[in-house]
């Protein structure tokens, strides 16, 4: 039906790889942060909350530029990682994953946080009276009950990551086969005289992926309520 060319496939597969890696790496951090924000009171909590949400409101090009300054070859963190661990972000697909991860992080954390906040803390107390140490309470009660929210967060984060454009193109540019995701491929195609058909195909692919993710997130949210009511 859609006659997708090899070059377009490259962009689609790269987008999928970038978004999947970004989501998987961000998830443990997201869960930890969601728990911290939902369950702990500490000094600087509102500042941390604001910083997490910053990529949502900052111009993406600013986030991308900040990433370039920090994680670029000569950046403070980027230089250290490149010299000591051999991890390079600049102009690599890993950099695209980092940009997508940062940009999608607020969306990923939010459902996780909400689902942890919705859990009755008295259930965690009950687990404690049955002999569960705090980390066991987390893994046997809190996390299983929050699981639908965790999955919803992952799906939303994934959907955001796969469509990310501004920060990615600023940080790692638009190199076919290395950093050219669906979004940047569409951007390039629109600027080419006869690229409309190819751009159109990629647009359809993006819409299908985004819609699928939203429907999945909705389904997980529905599961969450069922789970909390024990049916």
């Amino acid at each position: 039906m859609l006659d997708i060319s090899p070059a377009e496939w490259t962009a689609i597969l790269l987008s999928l790889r970038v978004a999947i890696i970004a989501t998987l790496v961000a998830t443990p951090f997201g869960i930890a942060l969601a728990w911290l924000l939902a369950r702990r009171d500490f000094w600087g909590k509102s500042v941390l909350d604001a910083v997490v949400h910053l990529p949502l409101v900052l111009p993406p090009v600013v986030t991308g530029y900040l990433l370039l300054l920090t994680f670029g070859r000569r950046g403070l963190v980027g230089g250290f990682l490149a010299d000591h661990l051999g991890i390079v972000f600049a102009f690599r697909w890993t950099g695209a994953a980092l940009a997508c991860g940062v940009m999608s992080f607020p969306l990923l954390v939010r459902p996780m946080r909400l689902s942890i906040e919705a859990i009755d803390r008295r259930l965690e107390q009950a687990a404690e009276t049955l002999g569960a140490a705090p980390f066991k309470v987390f893994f046997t009660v809190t996390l299983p009950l929050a699981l639908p929210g965790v999955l919803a967060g992952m799906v939303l984060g994934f959907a955001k990551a796969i469509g990310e454009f501004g920060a990615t193109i600023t940080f790692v540019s638009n190199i076919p086969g290395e950093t050219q995701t669906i979004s940047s491929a569409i951007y390039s195609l629109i600027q080419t005289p006869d690229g409309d058909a190819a751009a159109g195909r990629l647009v359809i692919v993006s819409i299908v992926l985004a819609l699928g993710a939203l429907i999945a997130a909705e389904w997980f949210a529905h599961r969450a309520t069922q789970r909390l009511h024990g049916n």
Partner: protein
Amino acid sequence: MLRVDVEKQLGEFSLHATFSSEGRVTGLFGASGAGKSSLINMIAGLLRPDRGTIVIDGETVDDTASGIHVPTWRRRIGYVFQDARLFPHLNVAQNLDYGRRMNRLAPDAAQRARVVELLDIGALLDRRPGKLSGGERQRVALGRALLSKPRLLLLDEPLGALDEARKLEILPYLVRLRDEANVPMVYVSHDAAELRQLATQIVMLRQGRVTSFGGVKVLT
């Protein structure tokens, strides 16, 4: 068995309670707001006393003078709450096994069968808590607490959320538990009739103070 001597300031309310008990079922009796729940939560370790000591079965679990505060999960107590608090993501069988797993106890099929039979919950094992009636939930909560092999079972108004008919349904199970389960209990209630049936010793609380202590006679 249980020695309590604690002080706790909770806003305007001050609790200062001293008692010791050897009874099989110690009834904590008092009107709502007398400090019963705060007291039982201190025994459970969910609330920390400002000053004082709590000794369960010879082990000091709280002693503010020497900075001892054993966390709830290491106290080896069972706690039955007014609102059952079964884990909604686990079925009845998994709820029953939770305490044993957390305490790394070997499976004890005989004891499990005995508790299941005692509480008459064999037909519910595959169900989720959401599909149980209030009375069934409370019976499962009792079984779950018992199967963690506690040295002391705390019950905070376990019939409080149930209507009269349900209460009468559960009471016989509690009596059987007292006579057969061989675990000392602390039973919180504001219902004198309930305690007359169950308790062997009464601690009467009023506005945060122990006003009388003794056999069930003190209820009259």
